[in-house]
């Protein structure tokens, strides 16, 4: 029952495509987004549909490399490639695309992407707690609002922003509650299932509906867990926490390897996972744009400098999800996550856990090499447990 519920999330993208085809004919606008920094609430308040754009598959990368340098992160190349080859239906549907200056690669790529579609780029400050930076960010939100109003020919009303804020808050809460189920042992969701649910939710057409679907899955998993928790025959599997660069379906190779080797990815502290789920928009502000600005500036992306909240969140998640090990995934050429790995390593080692920093791309060329590393890390956990007297086999 839960399996079919999870699998039904894989259909969301297809469903959204056919519904968009219909409503586009009636004049409904679609706005494509790439990143968690994009305030979807403003798009919703403009009466348009915000939708996540493709960027997690290897397929369009060779086409992207006709324009972009090879030595660029796979996520940027894939995002651009999907647009350039017109293979992402949502890119095709988009009347406007919103980008953010989360890194040098993205901001320069967005300049080139303007040739394909109208792109609005939000300039992101790097400091999250300074007056001038915050003012800049509020101003960027106002500019986005003005751009949406102009391009979509609407007026965005405060009351509609508040309604959208409420809905997005509900959605984040529902996503968090599903993710939090994996604090239990055995984890109700495998890492791949968790990814399927969260990633697919990003392609939803109807946020109210996705909240219902998430709540339904949560209830079903809780019900199923009652039996699982009693079942002593289920072997313990090492619990791995994944952090670092975003992961989606198509770029899930590290999660797949971990689970093929007999462990579970119980949580993902990345922006396609848990990173933004604790952040609720505070509705006590007078101005909804101020409320949004406060929420979004707190996202602990490695593009922020310094970025202490990521380490606090990781620290907390390692405890809450009872992680046995941490894998920090860097897509090649993502300098900020690559460098921040130094701090992640310090934190994880201080907590006495094995940590693996993997630098790779979307291709399958290094699967064997990754496998040896992951397997060795799991052997370290197994070894600890053997010496502590409780044996479990992970491979």
């Amino acid at each position, binding site marked *: 029952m839960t399996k079919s519920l999870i699998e039904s999330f894989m259909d969301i993208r297809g469903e959204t495509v056919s519904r968009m085809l219909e409503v586009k004919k009636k004049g409904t606008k679609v706005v494509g987004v790439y990143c968690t920094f994009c305030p979807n609430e403003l798009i919703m308040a403009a009466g348009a549909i915000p939708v996540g754009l493709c960027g997690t598959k290897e397929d369009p990368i060779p086409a992207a490399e006709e324009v972009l340098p090879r030595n660029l992160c796979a996520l940027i190349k894939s995002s651009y490639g999907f647009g350039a080859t017109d293979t992402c239906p949502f890119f095709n549907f988009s009347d406007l695309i919103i980008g953010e200056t989360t890194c040098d690669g993205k901001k320069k790529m967005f300049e080139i992407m303007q040739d394909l579609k109208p792109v609005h780029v939000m300039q992101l400050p790097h400091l999250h707690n300074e007056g001038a930076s915050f003012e800049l960010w509020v101003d960027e939100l106002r500019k986005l609002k003005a751009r949406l109003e102009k391009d979509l020919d609407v007026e965005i009303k405060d009351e509609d922003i508040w309604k959208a804020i409420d809905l997005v808050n509900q959605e984040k809460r529902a996503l968090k509650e599903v993710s939090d189920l994996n604090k239990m042992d055995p984890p109700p969701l495998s890492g791949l299932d968790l990814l399927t649910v969260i990633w697919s939710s990003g392609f939803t057409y109807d946020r109210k509906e996705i909240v219902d679907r998430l709540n339904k899955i949560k209830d079903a998993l809780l019900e199923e867990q009652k039996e699982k928790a009693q079942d002593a025959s289920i072997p313990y599997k090492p619990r791995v926490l994944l952090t670092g660069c975003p992961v989606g379906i198509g770029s899930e190779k590290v999660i797949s390897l971990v689970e093929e080797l007999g462990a579970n990815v119980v949580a993902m502290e990345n922006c396609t996972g848990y990173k933004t789920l604790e952040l609720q928009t505070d509705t006590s502000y007078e101005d909804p744009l101020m409320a949004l600005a406060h929420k979004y500036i707190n996202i602990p992306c490695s593009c922020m400098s310094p970025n202490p909240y990521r380490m606090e969140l990781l620290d907390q998640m390692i405890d809450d999800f009872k992680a046995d090990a941490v894998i920090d995934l860097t897509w090649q050429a993502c300098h900020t996550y690559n460098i921040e790995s130094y701090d992640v390593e310090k934190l994880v080692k201080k907590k006495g856990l094995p940590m693996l920093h993997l*630098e790779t791309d979307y291709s399958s060329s*290094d699967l064997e*090499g990754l496998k*040896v*590393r992951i397997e*060795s890390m799991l*052997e*370290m956990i197994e*070894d600890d447990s053997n010496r502590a007297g409780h044996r479990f086999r992970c*491979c």
Partner: protein
Amino acid sequence: MIVIGLDIGSVAAKGVLLNGDKQYKVVVPTGWSPREAGEKILEGLLEKAKCKYEQVEGIIVTGYGRVSFEKASRTVTEISCHARGVAYLYPDVRTIIDVGGQDSKVISIDEKGKVLDFSMNDKCAAGTGRFLQVTANALGIDVSEMDKNEIPSEKAAINSMCTVFAESEIIGLLAQNTSKGGIIAGLHQSVARRVTGMARRQGIKEKIAFTGGVALNKGVQRALEEELKTPVIVPEECQFTGALGAALLLSGYDLL
């Protein structure tokens, strides 16, 4: 109890058979079929030890070819196996630098051979046996002859980390009449620098063991000691530490 450890690497396949306190070792080139190389070693070991396959308690297989050998009772990664093998031979060792045919690794261990941390380079041929193999080719000598031919006092600077570029750099150096021995010394230093960088990042604790096929090369050992500014222990049969570790894992040594 008779146990066997096989380490099927990218270049050579190594096997150790343990029968009580007796050890038997066999090495063959891996060639194109890791499975056949494994079979060949198994045959060789049984012949040397004068025993039958049915008497063997178990076979642990490690190395990149570990998945292709069906007779394995278990597979374990090279990291864990090298750690066990070295800890058995040299209980004082805390850092292992292993340079093999297609990768190099640094492993930190405790006194019981437990892996505390590891790093691995297999993205690039720099700092591996492959680097030496390709560059030896450019010099027209066999890779096993490199250390005998080096002239450290005439050491040439090899700047290219990349194996392909290093090959062209060598051709350039030869054109400038740089001595072959000097170039070889430079190549040894290049490998040593690369792995030392990796080891420093992870943190080096003495004593240090240098293992893997490249440890057979005395020139790289010399260069590594120069870079690390401390002597390294090269096990007499440095190629076999992984296979030995694998065999030991089966004989119960893992539960120290």
